[in-house]
């Protein structure tokens, strides 16, 4: 009972070997089954996530969310899916048909491929590769191509404009994302995701490197295109950005890929900064590890939704300024300082408490210094004091 997943796996393996399948084929079938299960779980979670997001959006904006389709509107996502399935696929004239049809598939595939390296429990991982962190960065690069393809093949000026702006934003924000991802790699001395989780056992990296977590959160929110970095789908500016011309299930794929990407970013933050599957009794009962992992990822998803629903969209030049003039210098300085201090304290052989304390203080100091310096460089705006002037009264006073 302690290891439920291994029990099921050995039962299926004995079943297949009993039917006469070879060793390699059994392994292949088991791995295929595992990956299909993870993908199905992802899609199922997305259905629930869409409902949670809409209810949360409703509540934050002082209205009910969907509450017609079933009790508390829980069947709203199913209604949406049925509606999207029945819509007609409209391909604009002059569009490049091959590219037009492959772009949503590539966008979805580039998000699902990240799930292959996630350690979901202490002994459950798709592919425990040596370069797990770099693999995640590489697959993000593929997602960028999907947006370009979608924007170009629509034969639509607005879609192309939206795609160019979004790709400029995506490739700019990859840099602080990768640099702040390097800090857990540095602290764990390995690029394997399971090693990074094992190295977080007493103290999560959220406490040792909170500035890296913050920078990773901000640049990931830019990568997935959630507000305030909403430019990829700025409804009031560009019709719908790169997915203007898509209808039916193709648009549904972009939509699901966006929500799944948000949840995947939540999973990434839990792996790198919140300890992944670790929690009380997670090593003995791997099923509990799965629950902790998905629970923490869901919490980060809620935080990202919360930030999205509270902030307005920022302009593209302000956004690029934020990236190149603030995030990149801060992340590089953070990396260098953490590397040097980590090495020095390793040599000095400090206790764990002092190590955590020093790192935490350093992170806060770097963040405050960066905010102070960037605040100094802005010209301060002098606000003139106007006397209050009544504008909507029927008989205005004489001296107005």
């Amino acid at each position, binding site marked *: 009972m302690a290891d439920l997943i291994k029990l099921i796996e050995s039962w299926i393996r004995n079943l297949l070997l009993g039917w006469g399948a070879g060793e390699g084929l059994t392994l292949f079938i088991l791995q295929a089954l595992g990956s299909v299960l993870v993908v199905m779980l992802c899609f199922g979670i997305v259905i629930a996530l869409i409902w949670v997001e809409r209810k949360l959006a409703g509540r934050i904006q002082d209205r009910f969310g969907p509450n017609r389709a079933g009790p508390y509107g829980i069947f709203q996502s199913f209604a949406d899916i049925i509606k999207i399935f029945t819509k007609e696929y409209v391909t604009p004239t002059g569009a490049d048909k091959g590219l037009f049809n492959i772009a949503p598939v590539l966008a979805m595939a580039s998000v699902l491929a990240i799930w292959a390296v996630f350690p979901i429990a202490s002994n459950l991982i798709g592919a425990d590769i040596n*370069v797990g962190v*770099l693999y995640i*960065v590489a697959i993000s690069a*593929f997602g*960028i191509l999907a947006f370009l393809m979608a924007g170009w093949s629509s034969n639509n000026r607005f879609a*192309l404009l939206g795609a160019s702006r979004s790709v400029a934003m995506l*490739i700019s924000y990859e840099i602080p994302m990768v640099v702040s991802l390097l800090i857990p790699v540095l602290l764990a001395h390995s690029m394997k995701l399971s090693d990074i989780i094992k190295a977080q056992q007493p103290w999560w990296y959220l406490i040792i490197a909170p500035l890296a977590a913050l920078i990773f959160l901000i640049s990931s929110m830019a990568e997935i295109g959630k507000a305030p970095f909403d430019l990829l789908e700025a409804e009031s500016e560009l019709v719908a950005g790169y997915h203007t011309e898509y209808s039916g299930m193709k648009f549904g794929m972009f939509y699901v890929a966006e929500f799944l990407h948000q949840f995947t970013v939540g999973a990434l933050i839990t792996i790198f900064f919140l300890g992944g599957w670790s929690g009380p009794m997670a090593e003995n009962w791997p099923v509990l590890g799965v629950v902790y992992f998905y629970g923490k990822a869901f919490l980060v998803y809620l935080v990202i939704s919360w930030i999205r629903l509270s902030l307005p969209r920022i302009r593209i030049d302000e956004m690029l300024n934020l990236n190149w003039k603030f995030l990149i210098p801060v992340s590089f300085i953070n990396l260098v300082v953490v590397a040097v201090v980590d090495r020095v304290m390793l040599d000095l052989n400090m206790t764990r408490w002092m190590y955590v304390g020093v790192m935490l203080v350093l992170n806060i100091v770097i963040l405050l210094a960066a905010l102070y310096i960037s605040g100094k460089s802005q010209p301060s705006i002098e606000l003139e004091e106007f006397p209050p002037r009544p504008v909507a009264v029927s008989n205005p006073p004489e001296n107005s």
Partner: protein
Amino acid sequence: MSLVSLLFLFTAVLTCGASIMVVTTKNMVQAALWLVLALFGGAVIFVLLQAPYIAVIQVVVYIGAIAVLVIFAVMLTRQTEGELLPGKTNQWPIAALLSAALFVGMAYFYLSSPRTALMAPVLDPKFDLIRELGQQLVSPNGYVLPFELASILLLAALIGSIVVAWRK
């Protein structure tokens, strides 16, 4: 025919097919995307050669940066719609003959030399390639000097591009 050989043949056919599409198609955006597929095939070959780090770096650098740059360049210099110029120069038969001759010559040379019939040794799974690579890159007995010179070259290119694009 083991599974690895089948995978190699499939990837080789995919990469060569994508390369042929790159050099023959007239639509430049499609050519750029076939290039992405050919580079991805190259990354799969690197994984088969037990160099996963190089494979991932190929995807990040080549596909994520260089191919995106090529696509941007193609999009900013679009040909007029409906009037795709012939993609080939007038000397294309000589070019085809030259590259075919080069390929046949190299293939004959490789197949006739006994050294190239060796199989790749399977590395010990405990052997940590990344650690070894990192140590070689920064150890004074290793490759730290070329590494630092390459970084200075990249820095010079970066500063040069900013100076060229500077707007007073």
